[in-house]
């Protein structure tokens, strides 16, 4: 390697590296250190080294939200896949002009503030809200349904928020698929389901994987959606962290929670990258 090149390379990268260092790595390091110490009486920190912040996580009070985050992340991913795949397929089959319009429509909501959109769901789901009003007017129910401040509402909010992030990678994968593979399958005697299951699905797996990661990982850290749509009843890891930092002023415990979340995400990403590269080697 040209020594000049590495020198120049390092020089060029260093502003980015510096930024990363100052605004990301060092704060993370500070948090990591905090997580091994204790909260002072009025907030702040007491320098007694302890593992209690981490061992506390085994308390069901905290374990439940952690497990719930996983469950909701899985549910969100699966629902986004079930809704997103047919949608992406439908879009890919349109004429180019319609396709572009539909793709813009998919992404358009993301240009609106997420908080505002989540409030909109509160209005739709609450007792005097859109759904209940329609159902009562139609005479299908007498009492309004409890839709808001339930886990269902959180899932609705999550799917709504993350669906575009699933649709795009799926669309790219599906659109790239050579239709003659599907035709060959039909020619060889495969019905629609078999063609989908044995040819289309395996060949669009990269899109499915990419979309799943982009949905699953951020969902783990969601806190706005469970807070607004779940009330205090559906806390996720993100809510816990927020609670510890802002309400309980327990920075050490909040840091420990954050690091657990970070570690889980890193492990999952690691597995994903490993799976991806071994598939390529095959």
């Amino acid at each position: 390697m040209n020594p000049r090149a590495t020198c120049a390379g390092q020089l060029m990268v260093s502003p980015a590296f510096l930024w990363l260092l100052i605004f990301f790595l060092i704060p993370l390091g500070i948090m990591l250190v905090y997580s091994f110490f204790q909260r002072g009486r009025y907030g702040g920190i007491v320098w007694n080294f302890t593992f209690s912040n981490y061992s506390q996580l085994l308390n069901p009070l905290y374990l439940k939200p952690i497990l719930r985050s996983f469950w909701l992340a899985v549910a969100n991913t699966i629902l986004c896949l079930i809704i997103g795949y047919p949608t992406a397929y439908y879009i890919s089959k349109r004429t180019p002009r319609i396709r572009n319009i539909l793709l813009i429509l998919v992404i358009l909501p993301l240009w609106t503030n997420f908080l505002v959109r989540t409030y909109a769901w509160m209005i739709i789901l609450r007792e005097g809200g859109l759904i209940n009003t329609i159902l009562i007017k139609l005479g299908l129910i007498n009492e309004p349904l409890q839709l808001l401040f339930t886990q269902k509402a959180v899932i609705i909010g999550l799917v709504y928020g993350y669906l575009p992030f699933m649709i795009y990678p799926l669309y790219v994968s599906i659109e790239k698929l050579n239709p003659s593979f599907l035709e060959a399958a039909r020619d060889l005697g495969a019905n629609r389901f078999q063609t989908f299951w044995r040819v289309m699905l395996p060949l669009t797996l990269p899109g499915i994987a990419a979309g799943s990661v982009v949905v699953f990982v951020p969902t783990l850290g969601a806190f706005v959606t469970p807070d607004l749509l779940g009330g205090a009843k559906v806390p996720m890891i993100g809510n816990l962290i927020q609670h510890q930092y802002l309400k309980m002023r327990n920075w050490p415990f909040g840091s420990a929670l954050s690091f657990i979340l970070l570690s889980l995400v890193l492990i999952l990403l690691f597995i994903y990258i490993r799976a991806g590269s071994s598939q390529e080697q095959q």
Partner: protein
Amino acid sequence: MNGITSRGKVKNIVQIQDLVKRFGEVVAVDHISLEVFAGEFFSILGPSGCGKTTLLRLIAGLEQPHSGEIYLEGKPTNGIPAYRRNVNTVFQNYALFPHMNVYENIAFGLKMKRASKGDMDSRILEALDLVGLPGLGSRKSKQLSGGQQQRIALARALVNEPPVLLLDEPLGALDLKLRKQMQMELKSLQRKLGITFIYVTHDQEEALTMSDRIAVMRLGKIEQLGEPSRIYEKPATEFVANFIGTSNVFSGDLKRDDGLLLTMTTPDGYEIKAISDDVSLPETATFMVRPERTQITLDKPEEDLNILPGTIQEIIYLGTVIQFIVSSNDTRLVVLEKNYRGHQQLSVDQDVFVSWDISSTIMLSGR
């Protein structure tokens, strides 16, 4: 009516009746009717856009016609989708499934028919042997060369033992030598298996070499259908004459002299004679003669031949033959002579005579 002989065996394994397929404004298949005999190597030949691939896909069931009917083994296929038709296709780009290895690719059709593992194993080994690639079962398609991929695509179709095999320009992506080799192999494979092949190509030489019969297509219609020799020696239209081989074409007014002899007077004033037993006499017509039926001489021949004077424009050395481009007034003539030593005396800009037997003149109809 459906091509079933008195013995109950299907003679016309594919029968197409008045088939029409449109894509928007374009009529890709324009009222086509034809029959394919069981066990024959049948080619559909034509330039790009003539509808030949569409016709093949209609037979395969990958497209549905607007009107008309296709009978496979005597049974109508309208409304029957591709996966339930007893035909298989070899695609132009092979379409080997990239996420499966060779074995799994070939096994696909058998798996859809729920064949047992033992049955599949033996048939796949047989198929690999048949195409000359034993032992490649575990390779992935991207590890194969173009020629190998082509054979695996063939094996994948043949392993299902379809009565009719459809091939959509399968040799297009191969280099010349490999293509010629594969042409021979396909032909002998077809003879050995006795399966009906329906072969789509734009390469007229390929069609002439391999086929029992050829259907020449143009703009959605069949211009001529027949054995290769007939299509070559007696093209029905100017299009067929030009598409298959080269031709020297003349148009002009006609006069019938005595009985069988027709004399055409070209706008240049030359007379070209032809023999025609067709009683009807159109006022104007098109005559044609193949370059290899003409001779080129320095002196005017004395025999009773069609003779045109001209000047040599180009001499093209093709190895086994020499091609002369001669201009006769405004007409461009192509003469093909075997590579005799005698022609070394001829050179460009020489005045020569191009002549041919009256019986070699062919009369064409239509445009």
